[in-house]
């Protein structure tokens, strides 16, 4: 952990948060918010949370900025002047200061920043650090705890992505094809972007697969890899057009894959139940996977569930983008 760098970055982040809320133009606001996420990612890196940093880089800095732009694309970035509503402003300020004061009240008691002896660092997490590798043969402790010890959380986290994409479909998807209000200009008239994407997309996808597969040994895993794979599809959709990307992965197939991803995870956990063990007890897989002991069965199972996570997240990101940018019609986008 790097205290000096962190402190500087925290100040920078605070400035960007204020600026992002203060600018009177939504597009600028969103762009600045992207920068805020960049710096947050650096802060996580500095505190040793590489997996979180990776996720933040993929989700916060990359995809969520694109989501914002996709919404603004079809609407407006105008902010108009409101008559100053002083009472509301004061009310909310008092509320926030009160809440902040309460939080400060608890501050005196907390262990100082970076104290290795704090109870939070010595109780349960110590066990994970000391025995996770012995029990699972996965050197990336975050992956080990994420996909095995607390796999039940992770399964529902995958469900959350699935719910988001289903919910967005539920709300936005239009029946049939409404006539277009405007004729789209030649969608793919930019040669540089097209050629650059043609080069980049295979690399991005390869990198995404690497991140999924190598999550046991380096930062990364299902979520990060899934977001990167989803981002590659988003890139195709932006560089060419939506009709083109739909040929690669149609909307129906996307939904089906999203649910299949969750089924891979949950189903992999269900098999031990049929073998008489508890849900998500991967060691039961040793009986089914030839040549593995209980420990390696856990390790391999983690890879399997990460693949499920990656599929769902990829389809989730892709589906959310497609719905938002085309307003649920899936005909044209950015």
């Amino acid at each position, binding site marked *: 952990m790097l205290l000096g760098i962190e402190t500087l970055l925290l100040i920078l982040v605070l400035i960007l948060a204020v600026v992002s809320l203060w600018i009177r133009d939504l597009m600028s606001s969103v762009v600045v918010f992207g920068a805020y996420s960049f710096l947050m990612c650096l802060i996580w890196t500095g505190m040793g949370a590489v997996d979180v940093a990776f996720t933040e880089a993929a989700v*916060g800095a990359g995809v969520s900025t694109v989501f914002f732009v996709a*919404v603004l694309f079809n609407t407006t970035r105008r902010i108009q002047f409101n008559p100053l509503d002083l009472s509301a402003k004061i009310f909310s300020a008092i509320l926030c200061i009160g809440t902040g004061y309460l939080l400060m009240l608890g501050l005196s008691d907390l262990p100082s920043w970076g104290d290795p002896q704090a109870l939070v660092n010595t109780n349960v997490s110590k066990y994970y650090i000391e025995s996770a590798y012995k029990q699972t043969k996965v*050197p990336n*402790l975050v992956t080990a705890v994420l996909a095995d010890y607390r796999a039940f959380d992770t399964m529902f986290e995958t469900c959350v992505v699935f719910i*988001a994409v289903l919910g967005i479909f539920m709300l936005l998807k239009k029946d049939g094809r409404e006539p277009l209000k405007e004729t789209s200009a030649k969608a793919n008239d930019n040669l540089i972007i097209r050629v650059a994407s043609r080069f980049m997309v295979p690399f991005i996808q390869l990198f995404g697969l690497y991140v999924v597969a190598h999550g046991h040994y380096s*930062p990364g895993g299902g979520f990060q890899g899934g977001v990167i794979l989803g981002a590659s599809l988003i890139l195709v959709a932006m560089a060419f057009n939506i009709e083109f990307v739909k040929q690669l992965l149609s909307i129906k197939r996307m939904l089906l894959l999203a649910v299949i991803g969750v089924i891979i995870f949950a189903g992999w956990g269900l098999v031990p139940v049929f073998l008489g063990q508890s849900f998500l007890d991967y060691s039961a897989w040793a009986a089914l996977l030839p040549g593995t002991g209980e420990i390696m069965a856990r390790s391999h199972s983690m890879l399997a569930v990460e693949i499920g996570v990656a599929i769902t997240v990829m389809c989730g990101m892709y589906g959310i983008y497609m719905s938002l940018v085309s307003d649920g019609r899936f005909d044209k986008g950015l």
Partner: protein
Amino acid sequence: MILKFNYVIMIILMMLGLWAMIAKKNIIKKLIGMAIFQTGIILFYISMGAKSGSNIPILDYYDRYKPIDAAQYANPLTQILMLTAIVVGVATLGLGLTLARKIYDDYKTFNEDEILQEIKNEHD
């Protein structure tokens, strides 16, 4: 103070986000406020799990077969919790943006005051 600097920034960020969610009139700004509010919490968890002088929680090749000193590696548990929170955050953001999009379809504005005005007009 420097020893709890992270918590102070965390509280300020969260209150900034909360304030934006209540006081800002533009619903996209409200969503940005919500995202800032959530990152505040993530900062809280991550910084409580940081240990000075520790390394990232991925075991070094040479450490794998020796007894491990837990103080040398950052706390993995808080990181896992926050991985979940980030994903939940982006899912919430996606749904929030969808709702904002639909509100824009209905009222042709992102401004709260104008929306309320229009609702009032419908009633009259």
